[in-house]
């Protein structure tokens, strides 16, 4: 350890290491930047060392890093295997999780999910206002009371689907509109089921 100053404790760059955070000492901070490649290699090496370490009581390891920019003799960096007391390691490390990804929550099936925009007021009592964005999943099968994008005689429409015994009708959510009964003469298709309604509030 003589002559080496512990200037920086490096954390694993991607937090993907399955082992607890490795700590080791590197002589110069500037030097670290230049030797990015070597440092990454050192990370790998360290992971390996740690596995090995778990089987041994008092191992000693050295990492040899070659400076590519100069013709000096290789730097020898001693490896400190116990955490240096530069602060208590974060207790949250083992519990790190990815943030909430709304795409993942809202779009369950990306292959069959499409986005549409609400125009008109026929569904206003169900909260669908003009300009709102809706998420439509084509893969789902229609159930009674689903809100769906349907195509009827070549026109798209947003309505609540009602299935009663032997008839199907489309129920608007606005008292000023009347339900649409589907007959065999209609060219009717449930285009997709609305799974989310997205509104802008400011």
């Amino acid at each position: 350890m003589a002559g080496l100053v512990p200037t920086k404790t490096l954390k694993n760059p991607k937090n993907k290491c399955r082992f607890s955070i490795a700590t080791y000492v590197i002589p110069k901070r500037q030097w670290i930047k230049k030797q990015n490649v070597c440092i990454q290699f050192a990370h790998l090496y360290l992971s390996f060392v740690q596995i090995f370490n778990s089987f041994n009581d008092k191992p000693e390891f050295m990492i040899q890093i070659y400076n590519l920019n100069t013709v000096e003799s290789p730097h020898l960096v001693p490896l400190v295997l116990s955490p240096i007391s530069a602060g208590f390691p974060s207790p949250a490390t083992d519990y790190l999780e990815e943030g909430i990804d709304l795409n993942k929550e809202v779009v369950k099936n990306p292959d069959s999910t499409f986005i549409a925009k609400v125009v008109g007021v026929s569904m206003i009592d169900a909260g669908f206002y003009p300009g709102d964005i809706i998420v439509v999943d084509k893969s789902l099968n229609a159930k009674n009371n689903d809100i769906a994008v349907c195509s009827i005689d070549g026109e798209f429409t947003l309505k609540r689907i009602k299935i009663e015994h032997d008839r199907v009708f489309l129920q608007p959510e606005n008292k000023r509109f009347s339900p649409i009964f589907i007959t065999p003469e209609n060219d009717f298709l449930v285009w997709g089921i609305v799974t989310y309604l997205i509104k802008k509030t400011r």
Partner: protein
Amino acid sequence: MFALVDCNNFYVSCQRVFEPAYKDKPVVVLSNNDGCVISRSEEAKKIGIKMGVPAFEIESFRVSHNLKVYSSNYALYGDMSHRVMSILAKLAPEIEIYSIDECFLQLTGFDAGFDFIKFGRELRHKILKYTGIPTCVGIARTKTLAKAANRIAKKEGHGVFMLDDEIDIQICLDKLSVEDVWGIGQRYASKLKSDNVVTALDFTNMPQSWVQKRMTVVGVRTWFELRGKSCIKLEHTSPDKKAICTSRSFGRLLDDFGAIEEAVCNFTARCAAKLRKQKSCAGFLIVFLYTDYFRKDLPQNSKSVTIKLPTHTNSSIELISYACNALKKAYSAGFLYKKAGVIVTDIIPQEQVLVGLFDEVDREKHQKIMQTIDKLNHSFGREKIKVGKQGFNKKWHLKSEYLSPCYTTKLSDVIEVS
């Protein structure tokens, strides 16, 4: 077993998903620059519109048959294709995306009694339900036979056809003419026909040595495939390109150097971006410029200029400056130009670039700039950041009068429902 899944009239089908009003109507999609017909609905085929006819010839159908015409919208087709392929990738052990609307599936490791036809029907049903795109599925022991089976699936209208029984194969190959066999091009087909080999069955009945002599090992492979022995495996990664070309016809004839230069700079930037995407650099740059061949009344002048680059590069800035030099040599005033293009070739991996002794370009800096530009354009949209020479006039821009909204890739363009 192999299956070939092919989307029916793909571009037209993509348009119809978002415009159900045209479900049973004649619809066509035009090529880039609204040149000619490249995709037709069944109804359009029925009223006699042929593949590849120029746009002006179908003008009358728009009134007489209520023909719906679209300009090609590759943002939409690309996204829909991606969805279809993604569904297939989840359903089959291995796939090869063969083109924007075709995909080979390798169906190995299934039990002896596995019902391939049922599987094919489920594929079709799922893709139709999930994306709205109708498909056809051909199933057989080899890729070439699967392709033939797909033709039958499409023509006979059931959507799924399996070609496995020896007698079925014989009957099918007898009906299939040689030029329609996958892997036999026009030139070989006419050669074969002059030797009285007209159908695929004739071809398979020729001895192997005969095929070897006329069509090399590639022909022999097709010959084996048609006889039910699989020789062509799935290709998982497309090999890196040996030359990259970006070329377009202009929206109208151009004589102004500035406008043509702007177009050429944009084509070059596109080539450079493609080079960077496959992590390679080019050593030669070719710029070509054509006048309108069909306008016999105008003076003709078509030229191409090749430049050997001092060092292989993929920097837009560097390539554009060379392209401008090349264009200056190719261009002469007083002509009306119809088309220009840029080809980069002598492509090598970017790690293998040899830097010249007197090279003065700061390559590291260029690389950093390009990486930054690519990153920004990736997150904010294509060509948000570009080289100044690429300009903003867009006089050269393609004609696309009948472009539909980009329903799946732009929030401002999504379908509206009331």
